[in-house]
C-alpha cells in the first residue's frame, strides 16, 4: 500500500543530528516529519545480551564493514540512531581544528557561530564529568599507567542521568539513563507537533525545477512518499551520502560521498594479577592525550579504555587455539585500551540503487604508522599500570611483557586486517566548505546545489575531528535546524 504524507519539512534520520534539527524546526512552528529506518525501542525490553541487541540496535546486525571487509564499522539504527548504543562521550572539536576548518575550508566565523549551539546542547543533554567515585578500575588503570609515564591524561565528560553503572551501554541502556536524542530531542520535537515515524527507509530525495520536493522510500506497509518544502538529511555520514548519490542530485563537481573518515581503532589488552572486571561500571571515563593533538600530523592517536562482553571480547582478543581460550578464561583480569586514529586516510561513500551505503576506505601508510605508535602507547600504559602481559592483536599475536618490547611496536609494519580494526565514528561524505567545487554544503548545512536541502549529521565534517563526534553532531544538528527553520519560515 502506498502512503503519502505532506508536511513543511522532512527530517531523514533521528540520531544526534536529526533529533536536535527536528526539535528546532518544530519549535519554530513548522510541520515536521521525522523518518527513521529502524524501530522505536522501549529501553525496558533491552536484554543486555549481545545476540539480541546487535540485530536490534546496529546496522546489519553489527556486521557492517568497509567494502573490502577490513574494518568493522559500527553504526546504529532505530529511533535515536547511534545515540542509543554509544558510550555517551561528549567532547568538543578543539578550537585549533575549527580554525583550520575556517581557514582551509572556506568557513570563516564557524567557531564563533558554533559555540552557542555547543552550549545549548551541552545544557540540554546534561553533559558532566564522570565523578571519580564512578571511574572503574579499567579506567583507573589508564590513569595509573599514564601518571607513571608522565603522560597527559584526564577525565571525560558524558551525557548520563540516573546511570546505575550497569556497564551494558553499548547494548542500549535498559535503565534509560542516556540523555540522548531519543530521550531529549525527539520528545521535545513531538511536544511541538513533530511526527516521528519509525520503520521508514528513505531511498531517494525527489526534486523538481531545481528544488527538493520531498522523499520516497519503503515503509512498514509498502512504498511511501513525503512532500515537503524542505528536506533535512540526518541519516549518518554513510547514509546521507548514499541517499544523495542514489537520488542523482545535482553534483557538478562530484563531491558527494567524498572526504570520509572513520577514526579506526584496534584493541590492546593487558592481563592483570587482580580482577579488573572491565565490563562493570561506566565505560570510557578517562583518556590519555599524550599522542593526540588536533593539528599535529605526528600526534594523531587517542588512547581510551575499552571493553565489551563475551562475544565482543572473544572476537577482539588476538590469536586462536588453546592460548585464545586461556586468555578468555582471564576475562575478569583483562583491562583493554583502544588507540583510536585521528585519521588522514580519506575514503568515500558509494551507493547501491536503493541507497544502501558502500564504504570505500583503506588506511594510508601514515595512519598505519600512527596505529603502530598507538599500540605502543597502549602497551606501555598497561605495563606501567601493572599488567603482567600485553596482548597485541597483530595477525600473529605479540605478547609483550617489558617496556623495550613495547617501544619496538612503534616500528612494526602493519597492513589490512593486521591488526583488525573497528570504527564507530564515520565522518564526512557531504563535507561543508566555502567552495562548491571542493565541498557539498555550506556552513549552515545547506547543500550547495539545492536551495532547500540541508545536511545535519557527521557528513558535514571536512576532516576527522580527532575526538568522538557525538557532541559536535548534536551541535550541528541544532545549528542546521535553526538555519533551515529560518529559511523555511521566510518562504
Amino acid at each position, binding site marked *: 500500500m502506498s502512503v503519502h504524507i505532506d508536511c513543511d519539512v522532512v527530517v531523514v534520520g533521528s540520531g544526534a543530528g536529526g533529533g536536535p534539527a527536528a526539535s528546532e524546526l518544530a519549535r519554530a512552528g513548522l510541520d515536521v516529519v521525522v523518518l527513521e529506518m529502524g524501530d522505536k525501542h522501549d529501553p525496558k525490553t533491552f536484554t543486555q545480551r549481545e545476540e539480541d541487541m546487535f540485530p536490534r540496535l546496529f546496522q546489519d546486525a553489527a556486521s557492517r564493514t568497509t567494502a573490502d571487509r577490513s574494518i568493522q564499522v559500527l553504526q546504529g539504527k532505530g529511533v535515536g540512531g547511534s545515540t542509543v548504543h554509544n558510550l555517551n562521550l561528549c567532547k568538543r572539536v578543539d578550537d585549533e581544528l575549527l580554525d583550520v576548518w575556517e581557514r582551509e575550508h572556506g568557513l570563516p566565523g564557524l567557531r564563533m557561530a558554533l559555540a552557542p549551539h555547543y552550549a545549548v546542547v551541552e545544557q540540554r543533554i546534561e553533559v558532566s564529568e564522570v565523578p571519580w567515585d564512578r571511574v572503574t578500575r579499567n579506567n583507573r588503570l589508564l590513569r595509573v599507567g599514564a601518571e607513571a609515564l608522565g603522560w597527559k591524561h584526564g577525565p571525560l565528560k558524558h551525557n548520563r542521568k540516573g546511570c546505575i553503572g550497569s556497564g551494558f551501554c553499548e547494548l542500549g541502556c535498559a535503565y534509560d539513563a542516556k540523555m540522548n536524542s531519543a530521550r531529549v530531542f525527539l520528545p521535545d520535537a513531538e511536544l511541538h507537533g513533530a511526527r516521528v515515524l519509525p520503520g521508514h527507509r528513505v531511498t531517494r530525495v525527489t526534486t523538481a525545477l531545481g528544488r527538493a520536493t520531498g522523499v520516497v522510500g519503503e515503509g512498514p506497509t509498502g512504498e511511501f512518499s513525503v512532500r515537503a518544502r524542505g528536506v533535512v538529511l540526518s541519516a549518518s555520514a554513510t547514509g546521507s551520502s548514499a541517499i544523495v548519490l542514489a537520488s542523482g542530485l545535482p553534483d557538478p563537481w562530484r563531491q558527494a560521498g567524498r572526504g570520509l573518515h572513520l577514526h579506526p581503532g584496534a584493541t590492546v589488552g593487558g592481563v592483570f594479577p587482580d580482577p579488573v572486571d572491565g565490563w562493570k561500571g561506566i565505560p570510557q571515563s578517562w583518556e590519555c592525550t599524550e599522542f593526540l593533538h588536533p593539528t599535529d600530523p605526528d600526534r594523531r592517536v587517542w588512547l581510551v579504555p575499552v571493553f565489551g562482553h563475551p562475544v565482543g571480547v*572473544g572476537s577482539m582478543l588476538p590469536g586462536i587455539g588453546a592460548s585464545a581460550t586461556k586468555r578468555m578464561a582471564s576475562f575478569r583480569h583483562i583491562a583493554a585500551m583502544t588507540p583510536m586514529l585521528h585519521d588522514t586516510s580519506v575514503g568515500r561513500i558509494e551507493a547501491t540503487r536503493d541507497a544502501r551505503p558502500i564504504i570505500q576506505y583503506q588506511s594510508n601508510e601514515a595512519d598505519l604508522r600512527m596505529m603502530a605508535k598507538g599500540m605502543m602507547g597502549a602497551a606501555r600504559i598497561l605495563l606501567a599500570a601493572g599488567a603482567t602481559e600485553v596482548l597485541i592483536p597483530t595477525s600473529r599475536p605479540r605478547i609483550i611483557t617489558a617496556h623495550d618490547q613495547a617501544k619496538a611496536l612503534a616500528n612494526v609494519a602493519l597492513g*589490512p586486517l593486521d591488526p583488525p580494526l573497528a570504527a564507530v565514528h564515520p565522518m564526512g561524505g557531504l563535507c561543508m566548505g566555502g567552495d562548491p567545487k571542493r565541498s557539498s554544503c555550506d556552513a549552515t548545512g545547506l547543500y550547495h546545489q539545492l536551495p532547500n536541502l540541508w545536511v545535519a549529521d557527521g557528513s558535514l565534517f571536512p576532516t576527522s575531528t580527532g575526538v568522538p563526534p557525538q557532541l559536535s553532531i548534536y551541535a550541528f544538528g541544532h545549528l542546521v535546524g535553526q538555519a533551515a527553520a529560518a529559511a523555511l519560515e521566510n518562504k
Partner: protein
Amino acid sequence: MNRRTFLFGALGAGALTAIGAVPFALVDEDAVLLAAIDAIFPPLEGMPTGAEVDAAAAFRRYIANLPTRTRFEARGLLRAIEVGAAATTGSRFTVLDRDGRTVFLEGLLDGVFPQRLLANGLKQVCAVAYWQHPRTWTALAYDGPLVGRSAP
C-alpha cells in the same frame, strides 16, 4: 579490481580448485562451524563444546538478521574453509584433527589479505556462535546481564 572483487575471485578460484575433492554445495556448514570453534576456542576443562551450546543454531539465528549478501558471505566462508583445507592440506577441514585445523587457520592468519580475511571472519563467526551462550560464561566468571537483578 578492488579488494572485494579480488576476494570473491579468490574464493571462487579456491572453490573451483577443490571442487573435485569437496563439492562446494555439499559442505556441511554446521560441522565446519563446530570444528572451527573446537580449533579456535578449544574448551578448557569444564567448558562446554560448541555442540553442547548448540552453536550452529546460534549461527543460524545470527545470520538470519544479516543483509542477504553478508549472509551469503558468512555461509560461503564456512564452505571456503572446508574446500580450502582440502585444496591446501589434502584433507577437508572437518576431517583434520584439532592440531591440523589450528595449523591451517594459523597459516591463513599469517597469509595474504584474502586469507586473513577468511580467518578473521571465521573467528568472528565462532565468537558470536559460541560465547553468546550463558554456559560458556561460567569459566569466564562473567555474571551476565544485570536486568532483573539488583543494581550494582
